[in-house]
Every structure is written in C-alpha cells, then in structure tokens.
C-alpha cells in the first residue's frame, strides 16, 4: 500500500506524521481534562504516551533509517506505559473498595483546610 501511494506521489511525509502525533497528543490531553471517570483518564494517558512513541518511530524512520534507536525507545515506552496503567488500575480498584466511586468530580476529600482569620 505505501508503495502504491509513493508511486502516485502521495506518500505521507514527516510533516503529516508529526501532525498526526500532535493531534493524538491533543486528543489525549482533551480526554484527561474532560473525562470524569478515572479509567477514562487512564485511557487518555495511553493516547498521550502512544503519540510520543509514534513520534519516536517517525523520527527514526525519517532522520536515521539505518538505525533502530527510535523503535527501541517505542518498545520501552509501551512497556513503561503498561507498568503505569497496572499501578494506576491497582490504585483505582483499591480506591473503589473504600469509597465506591472512581468519579473524579466526587473525590474531594483532600482539600485546603485553612485557618480562619
């Protein structure tokens, strides 16, 4: 498929790919800011990390096609993202056990407790 596109002069260049990673990053950021469920936020975090991983692969492909540094980094990012999600989900499950909710709008137990003047 890429060969056909390249033959037609339509192969995506580095700018297209960078726009894609930036768009993924923006979508992830939007998800973090708007999701009410903590699990949804974790999915948005996955988007953010994967956009960065994709960006590593793209740069590797266009800047230094003979080497694999960017691909290696992407593999590590995937592994680290998995670890992050596992710990995050473990915390969410433990939280659900004690407070029966993972709705971020209702988690307001910790807040400023100020001296009244």
């Amino acid at each position, binding site marked *: 498929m890429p060969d056909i596109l390249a033959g037609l002069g339509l192969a995506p260049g580095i700018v297209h790919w960078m726009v894609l990673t930036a768009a993924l990053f923006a979508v992830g950021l939007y998800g973090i800011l708007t999701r009410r469920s903590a699990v949804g936020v974790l999915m948005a975090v996955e988007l*953010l990390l994967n956009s960065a991983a994709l960006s590593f692969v793209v740069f590797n492909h266009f800047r230094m096609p003979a080497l694999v540094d960017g691909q290696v980094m992407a593999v590590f990012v995937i592994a680290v993202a998995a670890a992050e999600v596992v710990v995050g989900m473990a915390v969410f499950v*433990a939280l659900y056990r004690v407070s029966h909710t993972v709705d971020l709008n209702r988690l307001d137990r910790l807040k400023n407790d100020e001296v009244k003047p």
Partner: protein
Amino acid sequence: MCMLPELIVVATALTVLVADLFLSERRRVVLALLTLVGLAAALAALLAAPAGSLFGGRFSVDEVAIWFKVVFLLASFLTVCLSLDQLDGRVKVRVRGIGLRGEYYAVLLSTLVGAMFLVSARDLVTLYVSLELATIPLFALAAWKRSDAGSQEAGLKYVVMGALASAFLLYGFSLLFGLAGSTDLAAIAAAVRPSPALFLALALVTTGIGFKLTLVPFHMWAGDVYEGAPLPVIAYLSVASKAVGLAVMFQIFYRVLGHMVKDLGPLLAFLAAATMTLGNTVAIVQRSIKRFMAFSAISQAGYIVMGFLGPDAGGVPAMLFYMLAYVAANMAVFGVIIFYANATGRERIEEYRGLARTNPLLALAMMLALFSLAGIPPLSGFVGKFFLFSIASKAGFHWLVAVAAVNSTISLYYYLRIVRQMYIEPVYPEAARLPVTPTLAATVAVTTVASLVLGLVPVFYEVIHNQTIEWLAKLVG
C-alpha cells in the same frame, strides 16, 4: 565496578521480597534491618568505588552523580528508619490499613534504584526508563494505607498527574530525538541549536521536571498527595523525589543544554520566584501539618532552582550542598511529626501545643530543624541559601535575591507558628511525657546534629565544592 551500589540495592530489594514470603508475621521485623544493612552496604560501595563508565559510556558515574546518589541513599535510609515503627505496629495510635512490610521496603528500594540509575544515564532511553522506575512505585506508596480513602485518593491524584507529566516529558524527549537524530545526551547537546522546535521540546521537558520538583505552576498535586499519603512516604517524597527532579534538571539543563543554560536565566528566575512565593504564601494559612510541609517543600524547590542561574559553575556545588542540608533538616522535622502522630495521632499544627513541656528535646530538635529550613544562621539552611543567593546575585538577578530574601522572612513567620504552639501555647490538660522509640530518637538526633554541623563546619561544603566545581566546565568544554 561502578555499578556495584545499584546492584546491591536491587539485590536487597529482591532479598527482602523473597524473605517476606518465608517469614512468619512476627519475624518480619527483621526485614527493616535487612533493608538498612543493604542501604548501608550500598553507601559504602558507592564511597569506595571509583568513578567510571560501563556499556560504552551509557552508564557513567562522575562526581555529581556520586553526590546525588549519596543524597538518595541517605534519604532512603532515613525513610526506612522513620517507617519501621508504623509498619511494625510499635505505635500508640495505629495507622489504619498500613501493612505489607516486605512489599513496602521492596517498592521503596525500587524507586531508589530508579533514582540512582537516572543520575548515571547518558541516554534518553535509560533516562526515561529510570525516571519512570523512580516515579511509578511512588504511586503505589502514596496509596499504601489500603483501608483509608484519603490515601487512595492521594494515590489516584498522584497517578493521574504523574502520568500526565511523564507524557509531556516523553513528547519533549521525542522532539529532542528528532532534532538531534540520536538518543545519546552528548550527541543531542552537540546537535541542538536554538529553534522554535527546541523551545517547544524545552517547554514540554520543563513541565515534566516541574512536576517532580514541584515548581509552580506544576505543583498542583503536592498538597493533596502529601495530605493523604502515609507520613514516611511524604518524608521520602519531599526529599528524595525532589532530588530526582533536580537530577533530571541537571541532566537536561546542564548535560544537554549546557551551552545555552545562561540564556534561559529569565525563565528559571521566573519559575524560582513564582515557586517560592506561592509555596510560602499558601503555607501560612494551612492547619494540617502535612499540607503545611507540602507547601514548605514547594518553596524550598524555588530556592534550589536559583542555582541554575548565571554563567557561574558555583551553582553545581551550591545546589548539591543545599540538597544535603535540606535532607537533614526536613528529615528531622518529619521525624518529630511521625513521632507525634505515632504517639497521639495528632496531625494539626494547633495540636502541637505544649510539646516543649512534655518532650523538650524533641521540641528543640524540631525548632532547630525548622530554623534551618527558614535559613537562620548558623544552621546549614542558612549557609546553603547564602550560596544560592550569591549565585543569583552574581548572575545579575538582584530582584530575585530580593524576592527570595522577603520569602525567607515570610517562611520564618510560618515556621514560628509551630514553634509558638510548642513553646508558648498552654499544654494539654493531663498531658504526660510521650514515649519515643529508640530508632526514631536516634534518627531525629542524627539529622538535627547534621543540620547544625553542616552549617558550622565548613569542610563539608569545601569537599563538595572541590569535587564538583570543575564538572560543568568539563561538560560544556
């Protein structure tokens, strides 16, 4: 063999985890001892091992890395000393839902390993993975009180904010990689030129670092996490986790951007001024001592960042010395906070009233440590601040020095709020002398004496200065 200290810590973590399986609940008290022995051995190996590098220069130990590792190891050692009473149940007021001693020490040691690898990393891949290793276990530690909703909420907030910050950092790293075409930090340093893309990468990376170092405006998580997490974990977060942030900042601002760090002065000065001002003004009105320490720690981060200003290489030893002084003073304060919480369960500032009547020595230690944090001579905090302020002044940021001096005065006011409660306010009726466990007493004593001695005896600063003053010049070349 310059990786020996890290290997000892990894081996200790695994040994503790496996030993935890085979020991009965009563015998698990030895796990803390095992951890302490491992940490002491790692510290000895660190001081005995020469500087060097491994894996084709991907892992390298230099003078600055050694001092950072000393800070990490000391902070972890003190954290274990402060944790073991709560975890073993040698307390009057039990902390709800804390337990799983073996896992606790193993997780604590894994974040320490991440921190130690981080300062030796010479590669984006190693840097990122070890930073995550230093961060992710802390999410679990913040939520360690399993049946306590506050601790779980702190864990959740820390996970969400931590993951967001790490994503920003990673995207910034990918841009650096794209600009330089290499993951090697030295190669990136040689390849990058000032360009809009570099500034975007720098902004993203600063966000990630600001989260670890609690720089304003990336400090949002600190208040809530400090309030909910278990006390020994906060002690670790406020000291070691902040040192991790500083280490990443050394890696990026000195190792990668060393030749243009002096042009970033205005940005860093703004971050420093905002951080110390916000931390100090918000700390004034806090009632919970945990939240109070969160904002106190934020303001301290503001002072530390001043060391990056200017063309002067003296910032490197000044920041390292301040970090050491801060470890000593902050751990002494947390020692007394943990002692008081263990004995009475009280965690509000006004509940410290009369502590000087019941436990005069501990109150004295707390007062000295708070004065060191505020920067009163002759304590180490004053000496550290003096060097940092002089760096900023030499770089021409006189307004920042003025802001910092005003901030020190504000901080003295709110640290004195605790001293007033301890020394002036009437004691609780029927209050008696509170018992102190030997480990806690020893920890508080050692850290208090250390924050005095570091300030009085100049030899410590001289050693750090002589070893690290050439470091930046070698790097920038």
